[in-house]
């Protein structure tokens, strides 16, 4: 199992029946593939759809039916379409149970940076700033370190922020971290690793939950 798959599988276990969830582009999109049996989750795509289904076959792709990553998708029974202003009204208005996004950096205050590298990258924030400001629970799904081995979980973000004190949880291939008023609290560590090893890969200071447990990624039965 790859690190990314482990992250996706673990987060999918957080879903409750009846949740409305927005998945960010990239790693978070993988989570849709691991929704536990018996749990109905409605995925929202901020370009104006609730009830997003999986990818179509090439010959069934409809150019008027895409997700926020601009990939063709399908309709689930009971899906609905709406304009961008309504899509973000439901996001900003606190109607999304969960927003799951990737990140470049997260810090001890729950600040998130995931949209720009000054002087290098001109892409834009898309809907990320609205999602983190409006969703009831914001989960960052990302690999723990950069390709060069640098920590992405910092004492303080150095890149321009997407949102200030907006992250509730951070999930990586190694662990689950909860953002609290006291700081970052390690609540789960993956089998085969210990707290010291996770801290060694993390710039931010990690507090350890008294209820620390093993991060389980098996599909729920």
């Amino acid at each position, binding site marked *: 199992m790859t690190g990314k798959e482990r992250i996706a599988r673990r987060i999918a276990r957080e879903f409750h029946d009846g949740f409305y969830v927005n998945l960010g582009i990239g790693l978070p999109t993988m989570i849709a593939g691991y929704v536990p049996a018996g749990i109905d989750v409605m995925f929202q*795509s*901020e*370009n*104006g*759809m609730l009830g997003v289904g999986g990818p179509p076959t090439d010959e069934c*792709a*409809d*150019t*008027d*039916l*895409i*997700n*926020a*990553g*601009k*990939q*063709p998708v399908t*309709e689930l029974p009971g899906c609905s*379409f*709406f*304009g*961008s*202003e309504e*899509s*973000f*009204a439901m*996001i*900003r208005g606190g109607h999304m149970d969960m927003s799951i996004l990737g990140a470049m950096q997260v810090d001890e205050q729950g*600040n998130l940076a995931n949209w720009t590298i000054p*002087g290098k*990258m*001109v*892409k*834009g*924030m*898309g*809907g*990320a*700033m*609205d999602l983190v*400001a*409006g969703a009831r629970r914001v989960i960052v799904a990302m690999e723990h370190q950069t390709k060069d081995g640098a920590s992405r979980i910092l004492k303080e973000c150095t890149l*321009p*922020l*997407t*949102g*200030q*004190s907006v992250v509730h949880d951070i999930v990586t291939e190694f662990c689950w971290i909860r953002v609290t008023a006291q700081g970052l609290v390690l609540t789960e560590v993956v089998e085969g690793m210990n707290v010291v090893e996770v801290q060694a890969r993390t710039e931010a200071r990690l507090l350890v939950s008294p209820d620390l447990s093993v991060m389980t990624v098996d599909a729920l039965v």
Partner: protein
Amino acid sequence: MNKVVPTADDAVVDVAPGSTIMLGGFGLCGIPENLIAALVKRRITGLHTISNNMGVDGFGMGLMLEAGMIASHIGSYVGENRRLEALVLKGELDLTLIPQGTLAERIRAGGAGIPAFYVPTGLGTVVAEGKETRKIGDRTYVLEQALHADVALIKAWKGDRLGNLIYRKTARNFNPAMATAAKMTIAEVEVLVEPGELDPDHIVTPGIYVNRIVVGAAYRKPIESKFIQSGGAL
């Protein structure tokens, strides 16, 4: 009442250089591709565009950019347009990136007679710099201003000669909001029907917002992810 014009060229014949133009669409989905093509033929310059994206190299608004027509742009994501990125990094195009939901609401407000409004989005980020903030209850909000345009170019699925419009699937996106926020709204549709044929319960954009309507001559409607993968081949 008949708002139908014969061709996309006729529809944009009097769009002036230096105009502020809203363009509907999300990525390449639901963009007014025939109106964009007609505008590109006219090569008018100094345009200030407002659109979520900027097309891709070789299609959609990317064609306007390549023709040197755009002076400034307001959008939320332009990551699929490398030419734009290069122009901005060189300082040759004035780009303002704002959150997608704030963009949508600023347009909606523009059409609804609301000059400004508070949102939580972007607080503590560059988006809030220089803007008024206000604490309401236990949360601090950022004051955002409405957006207006001289012209809105939008794409719908079906319309009638009164300008009533319905959209198809996720091709709706920014189109209905933009239809309300410009002095002149020009809609292109795939299918023109007689008044009364659209179920009044299903009309998304009532004709009051639409000044001109034209049937698009042809639609390519590429899927953006595949268009980019294939290097622009359709």
